[in-house]
């Protein structure tokens, strides 16, 4: 039978042990707020450049995305820039292209690709307009190549724009070039009326 005295001493013992255990945990440096692990981009004193994540070895290809489709990854067929798209251009592709163009290209090239972006107004060298005959005559592969490898003072956008998005941007540039150079007679009838109505 448990006497009152025994119960009391058990209780005291339990408390003492718990307190000791808590003390050990507390002093042992187990800290759940800042656990000893690296989160993305965390700093590390171990490596010379101070980064915990190691740079990829040059030429690394993500698993499952290896391809020999030269048109898709270089914009070239038989070593020459091609005026072809590696996959069908659908409305979805165009919408993606619009979103990516407005995010990554319009700051300099302008929303209409006329070379009058906001950053140019602050002193960045002005890129040529895409609405001239000479740029319009460039093959699709040329635009892909510029995004991938850069061009003169323009840096490569390969680090922030994945391959399929680059093609989506090219498709959207083509749409912009078309939209700025449409003959009135090629518009749908309703829009022709609207436009001519405004002009009169």
């Amino acid at each position, binding site marked *: 039978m448990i006497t009152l005295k025994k119960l009391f001493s058990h209780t005291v013992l339990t408390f003492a042990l718990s307190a000791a255990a808590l003390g050990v945990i507390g002093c042992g440096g187990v800290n759940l*707020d800042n656990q000893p692990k690296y989160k993305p981009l965390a700093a590390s004193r171990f490596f010379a450049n*101070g980064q915990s994540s190691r740079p990829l070895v040059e030429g690394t290809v993500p698993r499952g995305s290896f391809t020999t489709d030269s048109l898709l990854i270089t914009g070239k067929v038989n070593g020459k820039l091609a005026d072809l798209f590696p996959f069908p251009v659908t409305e979805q592709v165009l919408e993606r292209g619009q979103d990516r163009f407005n995010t990554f290209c319009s700051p300099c090239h302008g929303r209409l690709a006329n070379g009058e972006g906001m950053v140019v107004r602050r002193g960045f060298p002005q890129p040529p307009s895409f609405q001239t005959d000479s740029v319009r005559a460039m093959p699709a592969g040329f635009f892909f190549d510029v995004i991938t490898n850069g061009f003169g003072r323009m840096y490569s956008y390969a680090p922030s724009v994945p391959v399929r998005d680059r093609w989506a941007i090219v498709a959207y540039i083509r749409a912009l070039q078309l939209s700025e150079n449409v003959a009135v007679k090629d518009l749908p009838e309703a829009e022709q009326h609207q436009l001519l109505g405004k002009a009169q």
Partner: protein
Amino acid sequence: MAQLFHPRSTVISKASIVIVIIVLTSVIVAATEIYRSGYTTGQNVAREQPIPFSHKHHVNDEGLSCAYCHTSVDKSSFAGIPPTYTCMTCHSQIWTTSPMLQPVRDSYQTQKPLEWIRVHDLPDFVYFNHSIHINKGIGCETCHGRVDQMPLMRRQNTLFMAWCIDCHRAPEKYIRPRSEVFNMTYEYPKNQEAFGKKLVKEYNVQVNRITDCSTCHR
């Protein structure tokens, strides 16, 4: 014999009980206020950064989209802080002699990354994921405030558990169309309650699951 206690002592002792209660309550109230204040949580306090990078300049004045720099925000748990390379896409040509940008140029030359000080930092026992919030129509502004008006980055919200749960219990109050997540000046429609419920359904938001402890503590 003179009285040990003056008759006034009763009044003093009674008064002191009241005073003790008042003092204790104010201490507790003050302590909770301090605990919740910006002073301890770091809310609304700008941090000293290696470069005084201004979101107001780059987002509001230059019209850059968040995704130009925070490229992984819609694809990954981590929003991503831009590498020095991203700054150099512009600063290789403009403000090339500004002393404020010297650390950027040094970092680009030496390949040593810039060390930004974190402004938002959840405890490591909490799991957070950007992409699901972005893809289910929660705008940056809802959680980070008017970033386009911040000359220096600061934290708009406490990031306390209660703050997360408040939305997880009723996401229809905050949800917006997916196309508007980067918009800093989105205005909620007058019928947000009905519209929000519709979006919650359309985007198949798992309202029943996101209040489980294991959603955030895994």
